[in-house]
C-alpha cells in the first residue's frame, strides 16, 4: 500500500499539451530519408551534404542528405548506438565528433554490409558536398572521400568574428559557390546549374520562414503555447525539407493551432508554466524525451535557444531573384552562420531575457562538439550579473548516449530550479 502511494506521488505533476500539427513531421522526415534509399535503388544519383550545401543539390534535382538532419533523425529513431559501435570497431575515438563517428559508422556498415535497421541507414552517396561552417564538416567529407572515393567538393563558410567582416566573407563564399561548387556540380550532372529551380525553392522557403517567424512571436507570451522542443521538431521544413509547398501549409496550420491555444488560454505546460528557460547549444536529439521530462517535472518550458534560432531567422532578406546572393547574405548579413558564436550570441541572449521573460539558462555542452561551447560559462556570468537570472551547464552530447549521465543532469537541474525558485520568490 505504502509503495503504491509513493509511486502515485512520484508521477509527474506536469504534462505537455502536444500540438496536433507536429504529428505531420514524422511521416515527412521518414519519407525524406526513405526517399534517398528509394532513389538510389531506382538508379538515381544521391548526394550527402556535410554542412548546409544541400540547396544546390536540390536545385539540380539530386536527392540529398543533410548530416545534422540525419543525425537528429537517427537519434530520434533510436538508431545511433549500433552505428557508433561500428565506427568504434574501426578505431574511431570517443572524443571525436559524434556526428562524424555516426557517418563513419554508416560507411563501415556499407563497406561491411552490417545489419543496420534499414530506416536509419543511408544509401552510398554518388557525390559529397561539404560546407565548412564547422571545421568538422570538412574533416567528415575528407574522411568519406578516403573511404568511398566518390566525387567530393568542399567550400569554406567561416563564421565571422565581427560585423565589419560580413561583406568580405560574403564575397568569399559567393566566389566559392560560383567558381568551385556550382561548376563541380554542373560537371557531375552534365548540365547547367538550374538557378530558376533554386529561386523557386527560396521563394517557398521565404514564405514558410516568414510564417514560422510569426509562430516564434508566440514564445513571447506567458504562458507560451509551445516549447522549444516543438520548434526543434519543426526545423526540417525550413531546412532540409525546404522548398516543398506543404512546408508553407505546415506553418500556417501551426500558427492557427497556436492562436487557437492562446484564444482558449491553453499553455504548452499543463497545469501551469512555472519557469521559462533559455536553452543553449544543440537540441539533444537522442535524449529529447528524458530531458524534456526532467524539465517538465519542474514545470519548466524551454523557450528560446541560439542554435534553434539559426535557420533562416531573417527571411525578409531572401530575394528569390538573386538566389546565390541571398543564400550567402543569409549566412552572414542575416546572421545564420554567426548567431551562435559567442560574440553575437551574447547580445542575442541579452535581448531574449526580457523579450521572452526568461527565468534561467541551461547551457547544453556537447562533449564531442566543441562548436560554440567555449564562452558559455562567460555568458552565464554576464547574464547573471546583468539580469540576475541563474544558469547551469549540462554536459552530455548531441547523440552519443555514453556521455549522457542522468545523475549529473538531475543534480544540476535541481540546483538551477532551486535558485530560480528562490529568486522568483524574492522578486514577488
Amino acid at each position, binding site marked *: 500500500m505504502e509503495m503504491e502511494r509513493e509511486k502515485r506521488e512520484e508521477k509527474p505533476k506536469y504534462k505537455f499539451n502536444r500540438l496536433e500539427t507536429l504529428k505531420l513531421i514524422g511521416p515527412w522526415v521518414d519519407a525524406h530519408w526513405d526517399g534517398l534509399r528509394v532513389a538510389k535503388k531506382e538508379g538515381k544519383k544521391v548526394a550527402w551534404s556535410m554542412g548546409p550545401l544541400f540547396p544546390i543539390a536540390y536545385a539540380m534535382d539530386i536527392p540529398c542528405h543533410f548530416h545534422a538532419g540525419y543525425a537528429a533523425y537517427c537519434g530520434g529513431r533510436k538508431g545511433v548506438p549500433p552505428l557508433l559501435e561500428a565506427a568504434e570497431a574501426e578505431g574511431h*575515438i570517443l572524443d*571525436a565528433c559524434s556526428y562524424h563517428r555516426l557517418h563513419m559508422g554508416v560507411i563501415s556498415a556499407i563497406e561491411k554490409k552490417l545489419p543496420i535497421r534499414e530506416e536509419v541507414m543511408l544509401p552510398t552517396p554518388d557525390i559529397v558536398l561539404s560546407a565548412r561552417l564547422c571545421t*568538422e564538416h570538412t574533416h567528415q567529407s575528407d574522411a568519406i572521400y578516403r573511404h568511398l572515393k566518390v566525387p567530393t567538393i568542399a567550400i569554406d563558410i567561416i563564421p565571422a568574428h565581427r560585423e565589419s567582416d560580413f561583406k568580405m566573407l560574403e564575397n568569399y563564399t559567393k*566566389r566559392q559557390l560560383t*567558381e568551385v561548387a556550382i561548376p563541380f556540380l554542373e560537371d557531375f550532372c552534365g548540365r547547367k546549374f538550374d538557378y530558376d529551380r533554386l529561386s523557386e525553392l527560396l521563394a517557398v522557403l521565404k514564405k514558410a520562414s516568414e510564417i514560422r517567424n510569426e509562430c516564434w512571436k508566440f514564445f513571447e507570451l506567458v504562458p507560451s503555447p509551445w516549447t522549444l522542443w516543438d520548434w526543434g521538431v519543426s526545423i526540417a521544413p525550413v531546412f532540409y525539407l525546404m522548398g516543398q509547398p506543404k512546408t508553407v501549409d505546415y506553418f500556417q496550420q501551426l500558427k492557427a493551432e497556436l492562436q487557437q491555444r492562446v484564444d482558449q488560454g491553453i499553455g504548452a505546460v499543463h497545469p501551469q508554466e512555472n519557469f521559462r528557460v533559455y536553452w543553449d547549444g544543440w537540441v539533444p536529439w537522442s535524449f529529447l524525451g528524458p530531458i524534456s521530462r526532467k524539465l517538465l517535472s519542474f514545470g519548466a518550458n524551454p523557450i528560446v535557444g541560439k542554435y534553434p534560432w539559426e535557420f533562416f531567422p531573417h527571411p525578409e532578406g531572401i530575394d528569390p531573384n538573386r538566389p546565390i546572393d541571398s543564400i550567402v547574405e543569409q549566412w552572414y548579413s542575416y546572421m545564420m552562420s554567426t548567431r551562435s558564436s559567442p560574440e553575437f550570441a551574447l547580445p542575442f541572449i541579452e535581448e531574449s531575457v526580457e523579450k521572452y521573460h526568461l527565468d534561467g539558462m541551461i547551457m547544453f555542452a556537447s562533449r564531442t562538439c*566543441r*562548436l560554440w561551447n567555449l*564562452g558559455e560559462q562567460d555568458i552565464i556570468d554576464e547574464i547573471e550579473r546583468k539580469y540576475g537570472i541563474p544558469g547551469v551547464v549540462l554536459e552530455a552530447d548531441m547523440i552519443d548516449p555514453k556521455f549522457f549521465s542522468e545523475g549529473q543532469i538531475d543534480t544540476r537541474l535541481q540546483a538551477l530550479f532551486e535558485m530560480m525558485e528562490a529568486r522568483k520568490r524574492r522578486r514577488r
Partner: protein
Amino acid sequence: MEQTLNQIFNLVTDPYTGIAAWKERLQKKVVGCMPMHLPEELVHAAGLQPVVLWRSNEPVTLGHAHVYTFNCGLTRSVVDDAVKGKLAVLDGIITYDLCLQARELPFIINRNAPPAYLETVYIPGPVTAPVYKDFLLENFRNLKASLEKFSGQTMTQDALRQSIALYNRQRGLLRQLYALRRQTPGLIRAKEMLAIVQSGMLMPKEEHIPLLENLIAELPKRTVSSGKKARVVLSGCMCQTPRFDLLDLIEEEGMAVIDDEIYVGGRYFFHDVAETGDPLEALAERYLNRTIPCPTKVDWTNHWGDYLVDWVGQQKAQGVVTLLVKFCPPHLCYYPDVKKRLANANIPEVMLEVEHEVVSLEQVRTRLQAFVEEIR
C-alpha cells in the same frame, strides 16, 4: 653547448620569465601567434616580435571557469594563463579559426584579459582553387595593415623580404640539426630537439640562430651510446608540445627518435618561403603547399597516410609513434585512416595521447614495451 641547452630548456620550461627578460632588453612589443599557420614573418617585419602561443608549465585551475575540461590542453592552458594574468607579458595576440576551439578563444581572452592588441584573421581551410589564394592574400593584407597600425611602423617590401630571409635561415639551421639526428640516432634526445625547436618559437630568430649554430658545431662531438636502438619517427601532435616525460619514455624503452613530423618539430620548418617575387604571395604559397598533408586543411585527395608510408620508408624507420593531442578534432577525425594505411603497409604504429596534465606513465610504458618488442 651545455650552456646553450640550459638556456633553451630554461626558456621552454618558463617562457614567461624568459620572454620578459629579452623583451626588457630589446624593448620590443611581443605578439603571441596562434600555432600552425600564421606567418610570423609579417609580425616581425612590422617591427614587433612574434612568439608562438605555448602550453603552460602548470595544471589548469582558474581557466576551467571559462573553458570546459573536454577541450585540448593548449586551449585550456592559454585561457588559464590569460585569466591568471600570466599572458601579461604579451602586448598582442593573433588568432584564427584553426579549429572549433581556436574559433572561440578570442571571445574569452577579450572578455577576461584583453591584451593591447587582439586580432583575428581568416585562413581558408581548402587550398586548391584560385579563390583560396586570393582570400588568403586579402587576409594577409588586412593583417599587415592591422600590424602596422599597432606598431606605428610601415612595413616595406624590403623589410618583409628581410624577415623572410631571416626565418628561412633559421629553418635551414633546424633542418641541419635534423639531418645530424638522422645520421646519428641518439645524438640529440627527443626532448632536446623539441626544446630546441620550441625555443625558436619563443625568442627572436636573430638570437636563436647563434644558438643553433653553436649546437650544429658542438653536438657532433657528443659520445653516443653504441647500444642498438629501434628507429622510430614521431607523427602528429598538432599545435602543442608533448610532455617531455612522454618522449623520455620512448627512449627509455629502447627506441631512438630519428625524425618527426610534429608541429613543434619537422612541420614548423619543413618549407621555406620563396625569397623572390611578391613576399606576401610567397607567404600565402607556403600555407597553400600540400606537403606535409595537414589534417587542419581541407585536402581530400591528399592522404596523410600515403605521405607517412613514403616518409617512413625513406627514413628506414621501424615504426611510427603517433602523438595525438587529446581533444584535437582535426587529428581525431583523420587518425583512424592513417592508422589503417600504415597497417596496410605493414608499418608498426602506436598511438599515445598527449595531455596537458600528468598522465599515467606506467600504462604508457607498458604499451611502449609491447610496441618495441613488435618492431625489434
